[in-house]
């Protein structure tokens, strides 16, 4: 079983990536060396191919944002490795790190908090260039204008001297995109970029992201809980649950023929942009999962409608159930039986 088959074209490669957060403990627990952790991301291996848009799906607490933040090095992994374009991120020298910062950029969820309220649009976008040593004011101005136009803020000169509070949510997200694109990155991590925008604006931003891939040759990870936007934008989907990768495959296949019960629940629970889609009516225990006291085997087992004894021995290894579609469930979809 080799999930990371297309190794030659891999731009982002994560191997056994984990992020554990220590939990505040009382003295007795500390003395008994019962060191408890939240396994936000647990032993994740995943590759993203050049020019691909990978959707990272899952509910809050599934570890999708943590994964994204580890790729841009906002957080250091507890263990495991990430490499971008063949360069491992750890053990990078100062100059390597700075070069890396240009290659991997990120856009964030909250358009109202993503821009420094005291910078104008021009200052915001130019700041990225200044950090990377650009000094020629003419050069900076030219690049800023270009990127604002690429982000479809037209005419760019109208926006240059505006402050974030003078812009709409969609315009702010475009400024954030321009700020990321001005460094000409190879990889863009988009963390829920449209979830706080008006529905009418979402499609515009998603289309912009699509065009960016064509135009700039971007490789993208699109992080979202919203399967509808993932399906619209992404080539492949990786579904995470409590820090584990549970399903990975082509977007249409994962949403049309989910091979993991959790994906199925997820598909059933969110609106799908396809009116003909026959929605499965699945009864699932909706108690929020405990992120510290994890079940011994499959993490989804306590909420899974098809859980059985064998699930306690599940090791979350991925099985190829359909072409290029992998699931961590021990059973194939036709073996699922309600408890």
């Amino acid at each position, binding site marked *: 079983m080799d999930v990371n088959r297309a190794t030659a074209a891999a731009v982002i490669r994560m191997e056994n990536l984990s992020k554990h957060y220590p939990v505040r403990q009382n003295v007795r627990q500390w003395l008994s060396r019962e060191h408890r952790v939240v396994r936000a991301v647990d032993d994740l291996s995943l590759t993203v191919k050049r020019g691909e848009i990978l959707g990272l799906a899952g509910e809050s607490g599934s570890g999708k944002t943590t994964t994204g933040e580890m790729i841009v090095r906002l957080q250091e992994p507890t263990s495991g490795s990430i490499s971008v374009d063949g360069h491992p991120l750890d053990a990078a020298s100062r100059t390597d790190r700075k070069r890396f910062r240009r290659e991997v950029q*990120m856009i964030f969820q909250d358009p109202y908090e993503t821009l420094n309220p005291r910078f104008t649009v*021009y200052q915001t976008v130019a700041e990225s260039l200044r950090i990377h040593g650009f000094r020629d004011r003419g050069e900076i101005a030219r690049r800023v204008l*270009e990127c604002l136009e690429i982000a479809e803020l037209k005419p760019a000169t109208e926006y240059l001297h505006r402050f974030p509070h003078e812009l709409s949510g969609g315009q702010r997200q475009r400024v954030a995109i321009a700020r990321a694109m001005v460094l000409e990155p190879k990889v863009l991590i988009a963390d829920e970029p449209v979830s706080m925008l008006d529905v009418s604006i979402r499609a515009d931003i998603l289309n912009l992201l699509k065009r960016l891939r064509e135009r700039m040759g971007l490789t993208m990870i699109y992080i979202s809980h919203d399967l509808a936007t993932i399906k619209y934008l992404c080539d492949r989907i990786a579904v995470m649950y409590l820090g584990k990768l549970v399903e990975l495959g082509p977007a249409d296949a994962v949403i049309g023929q989910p091979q993991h019960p959790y994906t199925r629940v997820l598909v059933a629970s969110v609106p799908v942009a396809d009116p003909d889609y026959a929605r499965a009516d699945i009864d699932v225990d909706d108690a929020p999962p405990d992120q510290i006291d994890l079940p011994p085997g499959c993490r989804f087992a306590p909420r899974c409608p098809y859980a059985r004894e064998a699930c306690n021995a599940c090791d979350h290894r991925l099985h190829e159930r359909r072409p290029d579609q992998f699931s961590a469930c021990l059973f194939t979809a036709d073996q699922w039986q309600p408890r």
Partner: protein
Amino acid sequence: MQAAQEQAPSPASASASASASPPPRAHHSQSLAALFSANLRQDRLALTGVVLLTFFLVVGIFAESLAPHGPRERHYDDAGRIRRLEPPSLAHPFGTTDVGRDIFSQVILGTRTALIVGFLAALLVTLVGAVVGIVAGYYGGWPDAVLMRIVDFFYAIPFIPFAIVLAAILQPSIWNIILAVSLLTWRTVARIVRSQVLSIAQRPYIKAARVAGAGHTRIMTRYILPNVLPLVLLEMAFMVNWAIMAEASIAFLGFGDPRLTSWGQILHLNFVSGYWRIAWWWTVPPGLAIILLLLSIFFVARALEAVVDPRLRNR
């Protein structure tokens, strides 16, 4: 970084026609000063505060020329007797002391002392407090723990005994009072700034700056400082008040600089002479001056606070 500049190809040919000259610098549309002056038009108290404070500043700056007499100059009547404890008159608007000194001149010269102590101490306090607060709040972890334990330590020290001991060990002078005030009040600013920084440091725009490659120093000076600056200015205004009050208290107790006229010292001499029971003109002017100056700064600070925190604007 020259290399980086050469490597980078143009992102696209979207706007070859785009102007190559840097755009003119924008002025800050939401500047604190603009908001403050707009606020003044509605807030009568703030306006009163600004007028009063301006008056005190003018008096303080031109104290030497405004004071008709020297603070220690003794005044004699035509018969050559000292004008002891004279109530206010045209020649001495605030009357005279028990040794025939002009209280009006003393109060005017005391204004300068109060303002120097107030503003210098506040400047020092906010400078140290803001740096400590920003560093502690931004880095977190052990730098935060160490700095905050030091802050706790300084919270435990009572001000007046500390200032007295400091005056006893060093020379009694306003510089030592400024030092004592600064040593003991930076903690408050540090704590307030830290709590604000803790929340700012988690904002996505800080993350975005890190992703763009900004270093810690750049983030602290270009992102965090401008966003806590309104709060720092506000704290500074409150600290001016605190320092003036502290100087007056120390001087009243008699631990101030004996060579320097200050409002606290006028009250001190009044008190030890024992004439405070009868010479109301000796107590009221310095007392009123302290009250009015503190009030004016408080009103200004309050108006500043309303600008910093929009929720307070309509109170």
